[in-house]
Structure formats: structure tokens, C-alpha cells
């Protein structure tokens, strides 16, 4: 069955640097891949969606790439700020398979130190 792995449980970087989070999946490529942000005690908030035929998507300081050959998505936050500290989740949409549901990764906890 499809599995998702996010590169590390936690990532700690200096303010102003670029944070790069990784999402790897096994088996077949999803039609869509989404990234969410989750703050402690709150529900996830949608950030970006990228389709399988798109290589890159940007939104303000955020950039997502999708490499179906490597079966990997990278999520970048440029000019990171302490307010960017949160857990970031990637989610695969399995539409096109019989499952037709979204699978979430376990998340990467990002900490930006001043």
C-alpha cells in the first residue's frame, strides 16, 4: 500500500535561512500532493497543492516541487521567520486508485530560532 515519509521528525534552523522539508512516497504517483501547516492543539491549515504534471508551485515565501521520478516533493520556506515554526504535513491524494482518499504524512516539526 502507499506509504508517505517525511524526512525528519524535527528540523531546527536559523531565522532568515531557507527551510527545506522532504516528503517521499512509495508505489504509484498521486494525482495531487498537498502541504498543510499545523500549530499545536489546532487543526491543519492548507498551504499549497501541486498536481502531478506540475514541477513547481509558489506562494509568497513558499515553494513546492514535485518529482514523480524520485517520488518526492520538497517544501521550501525562504527567509524563514520564528512565526513559521510549526509542524508541516504533506498529504497525497489517491484519486485514480480505488482508495480515493487522502493520506497524510506524520509531519516535520520545524523550529526557527531567532
Amino acid at each position, binding site marked *: 500500500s502507499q506509504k*508517505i515519509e517525511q524526512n525528519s521528525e524535527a528540523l531546527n534552523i536559523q531565522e532568515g535561512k531557507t527551510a527545506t522539508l522532504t516528503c517521499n512516497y512509495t508505489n504509484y504517483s498521486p*494525482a*495531487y500532493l*498537498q502541504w498543510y501547516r499545523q500549530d499545536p*492543539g*489546532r*487543526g*491543519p*491549515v*492548507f498551504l499549497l*497543492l501541486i*498536481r502531478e504534471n506540475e514541477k513547481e508551485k509558489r506562494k509568497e515565501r513558499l515553494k513546492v516541487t514535485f518529482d514523480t521520478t524520485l517520488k518526492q516533493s520538497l517544501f521550501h520556506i525562504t527567509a524563514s521567520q520564528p512565526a513559521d515554526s510549526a509542524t508541516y*504535513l504533506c*498529504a497525497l*491524494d*489517491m*484519486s485514480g486508485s480505488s*482508495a*480515493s*482518499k*487522502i*493520506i*497524510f*504524512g*506524520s*509531519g516535520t516539526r520545524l523550529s526557527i530560532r531567532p
Partner: protein
Amino acid sequence: EAGVTQSPTHLIKTRGQQATLRCSPISGHTSVYWYQQALGLGLQFLLWYDEGEERNRGNFPPRFSGRQFPNYSSELNVNALELEDSALYLCASSPEGLPYNEQFFGPGTRLTVL
């Protein structure tokens, strides 16, 4: 515009009891999703309702069930509670059950089973 609401915020039950969790989607949204987020684990897909019907369910035993009402609100019922059911239960809604639609999450219900 009001977001997704969930009630109660916290719920404490003992083993063997039943729990009922409620979710009201964003006005105009017809799809409701339920997820379980146990400590240290990612979001696990539980159930998806659209237009009053169960469209898909995750790998959970039958004691996890639910329904969607004509006004699109939803209930999640967990029977014969076990200690490992303790988790944050998140509800999300989307305009319709299409894979490229972002999901809007509620704040969650924290269920504690003693």
C-alpha cells in the same frame, strides 16, 4: 464566514463506553472527513461522507462509525472505547468530494479514554 466547528472540545470516557463527536462543516460544503491523530502519529483517515453517504473509510474497526445529516453536519461514534482510542479527532470539510479541493479543518475534539 464561520469555519468548521467541532464539539465537544474535550471528552473524557472510560473503557467500554461510547463516544459521540460532532462536526459542522463550512456553509456550502458537502463533504466531511474524519481523522484520528494519536500522539506521535500522523493523521489517520477514518471516514469520508459526501451528500449524506459514506464514500470511503480507513483501516479502522467497525466500532468506529458515523453519519452525515441532511444539513451536512456529521457525527462520529466510537463504541466499546479502548485506551488506544485516546487521540485528537479532527473533522474537515471541502466544497465537494473532489481530490483537488483543499480541506478545511476544525479545531478537533480531544478524546481521553481512562
